């Protein structure tokens, strides 16, 4: 990579106020190490913890559900994606993105649309209902990640889908947390 190209990355990170960016396979160890890096950089007060909790759910979402896979160092198959944390001055802006196979998109879209139709109280009620039931089929965690991201971001999370190629859609989430 020549200097002008590196500079392009640098300038873009600078103008978008990026605090941290990661693109790659997310194993549990990487999630914890990125979490540790965040804590070293920003401390761990209540505001940071709120941002941190969204960050972890986004990371684990990629790890469990991205349809782009790689084998991590410890031999486990993990999902690949991108995680971005920016500082807008008044807020932390968190974004993540990963590939999803076309056939899974309608279900995921419906889930996101349902979450967007709820206000914070509605989201909390839905969370309570979900936490005591079995995780949805195909779920690798508690099946609560997207609900938690919506609650912690005060129902401002944006879910977006864009065509990637004939087989995949790029799914991304952006959420803001006040500093």
């Amino acid at each position, binding site marked *: 990579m020549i200097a002008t190209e590196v500079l392009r990355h640098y300038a873009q990170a600078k103008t978008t106020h990026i605090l941290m960016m990661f693109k790659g396979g997310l194993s*549990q*160890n990487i*999630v*914890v190490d990125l*979490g*540790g890096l965040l804590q070293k950089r920003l401390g*761990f007060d*209540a505001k940071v*913890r*709120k941002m*941190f*909790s969204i960050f*972890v*759910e986004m990371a*684990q979402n990629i790890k469990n559900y991205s349809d782009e896979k790689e084998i991590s160092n410890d031999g486990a198959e993990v999902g690949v994606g991108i995680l971005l944390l920016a500082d807008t001055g008044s807020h932390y802006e968190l974004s993540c993105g990963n590939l999803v196979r076309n056939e899974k998109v309608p279900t995921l879209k419906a889930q996101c649309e349902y979450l967007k139709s709820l206000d914070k109280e509605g989201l*909390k009620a839905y969370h*309570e209902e979900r*936490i*005591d039931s079995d995780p949805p089929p195909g779920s690798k*965690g*508690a099946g*609560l*990640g997207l*609900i*938690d991201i919506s609650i*912690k971001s005060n129902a401002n999370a944006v879910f977006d889908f864009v065509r990637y190629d004939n087989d995949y859609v790029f799914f991304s989430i952006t959420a803001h947390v006040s500093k």
Partner: protein
Amino acid sequence: MWNKQALEQANICAARYADKWYSKILSNYGVTMVQSFVIEQTDQTPRLVLDAEAGTMELVGICYVEDPMDFFAVAFEWMDEYFASGKTELHCVINITYLNTAASKAFRSLMRHMDQHCTSGRNITITWYYEDGDDDALDMGNFYSTNLRVPITIECV
């Protein structure tokens, strides 16, 4: 780091099973014994103190470990053994600042397990501590206290 923690936990469990044998002998003489132990905090698991003598369970820190049920299983087992030994009272001190969604589901199961012991006549109380201004920790305390037989006192640190 995590492997070291897992190893320590395995050693603790092994020690407990050895103790089960002793406790069986002791119980023949009308003496029962439940072990007390501490699992120190790591970067992804909370500190867990199980004190059979004082009748307390203490949980402090954060949890976002990959398989939280593996971690909380120790608390489940200890509690069953503790009450099986004839104890009837348990006080839980909880100061959790962050649980990811998988850990919150596991923790919810632990609360439900406490509820079952309550139904069987055991006297369990919980004090949930949160830091002033930490709305998420306060919300968690309020959330866990709903639909629960075990009384939870929520206190600001």
